[in-house]
């Protein structure tokens, strides 16, 4: 603004003086306005393109690092006889086609089936790539490859819109991309940090639920329930708690929907309450590891398990409560922060107060620790 205010005075004075330099400055000054009137939007677009380009460079680097980490981890843990690189490259391009939703009745079961097929297929691929692995390592490697796959996908989508915007010189395509880019980069960075955690089998922030469940069930007899979950009967404040979590310590979320349904049916619906513990996305400004309490099925993912749990509890009119540990997307998929690990006792206190206030002595309650149980045993 200062420059703009000074220029007319300056040029006027100089023109008055009849100097050649003052005339040049005057022409430049007019040109400056003409250029900005007619090409302002285009200049803004080029600035946005440059910003997208720099993010794309970073995404490309992340993708290369992710691929390299996946290959090195598979070679190190899996001891494959042949080079797994071509198979990994093929794996990174896998896609899943969701069910048709023109007639949505029964879509949950179709989606459930497709997800089961995908899961089995990806695990088989990992076993072929890394034959010298146990079950927990197969889960960890699958998680590692899925994180690499996510980064690869993000890079390709951003690149697609960047090239499309550049080709068509569409201001709005580039502008939309530039606007969502900070969130996209945050997600990509979260996956990049998740990759190392998965490769090393470290607990991640999403494992807050399984960690609480593991603390409750540790030392008690544990049995398997469908699918990929475990349950233990634990005495809890004069009640009997049926504690459910995904089977660890491999990177596994299990299918808590099936597990809850199975346990409710085993007990013929005589369950006083279901309490779900999960990691919940925090809003900006909220502290990491804060514990909050509410109502409903606290479970993320594509919705299949939430649907199954809601079906089961509605059939037997079982009340459902939720306790969440707040964290952002980066914390949820990167190695568990101390604040989250320390929140376990706070969560247990909340669960205890809910159980004491809302159930009677001798009742049976289901406590479900939802999330990825990587690095958390039982």
């Amino acid at each position: 603004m200062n420059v703009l205010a000074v220029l007319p005075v300056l040029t006027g004075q100089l023109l008055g003086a009849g100097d050649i330099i003052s005339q040049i400055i005057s022409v430049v000054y007019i040109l400056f306005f003409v250029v900005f009137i007619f090409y302002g939007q285009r200049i803004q677009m080029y600035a946005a393109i440059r910003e997208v380009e720099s993010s794309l460079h970073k995404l490309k680097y992340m993708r290369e690092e992710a691929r390299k980490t996946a290959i090195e981890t598979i070679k190190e843990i899996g001891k494959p006889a042949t080079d797994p690189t071509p198979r990994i490259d093929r794996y990174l391009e896998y896609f899943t086609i969701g069910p048709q939703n023109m007639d949505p009745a029964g879509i949950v079961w179709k989606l459930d089936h497709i997800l089961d097929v995908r899961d089995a297929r990806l695990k088989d691929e990992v076993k072929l790539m890394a034959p010298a692995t146990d079950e927990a390592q197969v889960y960890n490697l699958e998680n590692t490859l899925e994180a690499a796959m996510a980064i690869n996908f993000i890079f390709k989508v951003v690149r697609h819109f960047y090239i499309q915007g550049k080709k068509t010189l569409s201001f709005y395509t580039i502008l939309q991309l530039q606007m969502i880019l900070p969130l996209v980069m945050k997600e990509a960075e979260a996956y990049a940090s998740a990759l190392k955690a998965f490769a090393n089998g470290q607990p991640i922030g999403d494992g807050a639920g399984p960690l609480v469940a593991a603390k409750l069930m540790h030392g008690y007899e544990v049995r398997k329930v469908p699918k990929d979950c475990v349950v233990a009967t634990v005495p809890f404040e004069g009640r009997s708690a049926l504690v459910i979590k995904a089977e660890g310590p491999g990177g596994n979320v299990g299918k808590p929907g099936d597990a809850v349904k199975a346990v409710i049916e085993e007990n013929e619906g005589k369950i006083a309450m279901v309490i779900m513990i999960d990691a919940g996305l925090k809003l900006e400004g909220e502290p990491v590891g804060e514990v909050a309490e509410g109502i409903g099925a606290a479970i993320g993912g594509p919705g299949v398990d939430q649907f199954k749990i809601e079906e089961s509890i509605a059939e037997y009119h079982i009340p459902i409560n939720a306790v969440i540990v707040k964290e952002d997307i980066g914390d949820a998929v990167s190695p568990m922060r101390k604040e989250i690990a320390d929140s376990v006792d706070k969560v247990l206190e909340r669960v205890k107060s809910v159980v004491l206030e809302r159930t009677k002595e001798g009742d049976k309650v289901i406590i479900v620790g939802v999330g990825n149980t990587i690095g958390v045993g039982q």
Partner: protein
Amino acid sequence: MTTNSSQTASRISTFVFLVVLAVYALAIVSIGLAISFYGDQSQGSYTWIYMLGLSIVSITLATYVLLQSRRHVTTMKTAVPPQVMTTIECRKCAIKNVREFQRGDYVYKELEKCQKCDDKQIITAIYKEVKEKEKKYPF
């Protein structure tokens, strides 16, 4: 996760650099003119002040753009991750040890026997400590 950025990402844009150079050159010319106008008061008494002001503003803006570009390059480099620690406890003696995470560690894994008693030690926590950035917001 990583300590370096890609080579292409760590360069300051040539275009930005050339524009900044051009602005610096023009500012120097402007300072020269200001000096000459100061000597020749027939050009108007305040012309040299305007010229000088213009060149100072130009230099400030060009330096700001250059520093912003450098800061942008710095943020391109991803940070070194904090170390992941494993807490090992002997429940009987209430002894707690913290060491660096090793591949194969998991929470509630049983380890070798405690040195003081015969009870097995277990891993009770695996976590990373992140230093919180200073809050910039008043709420």
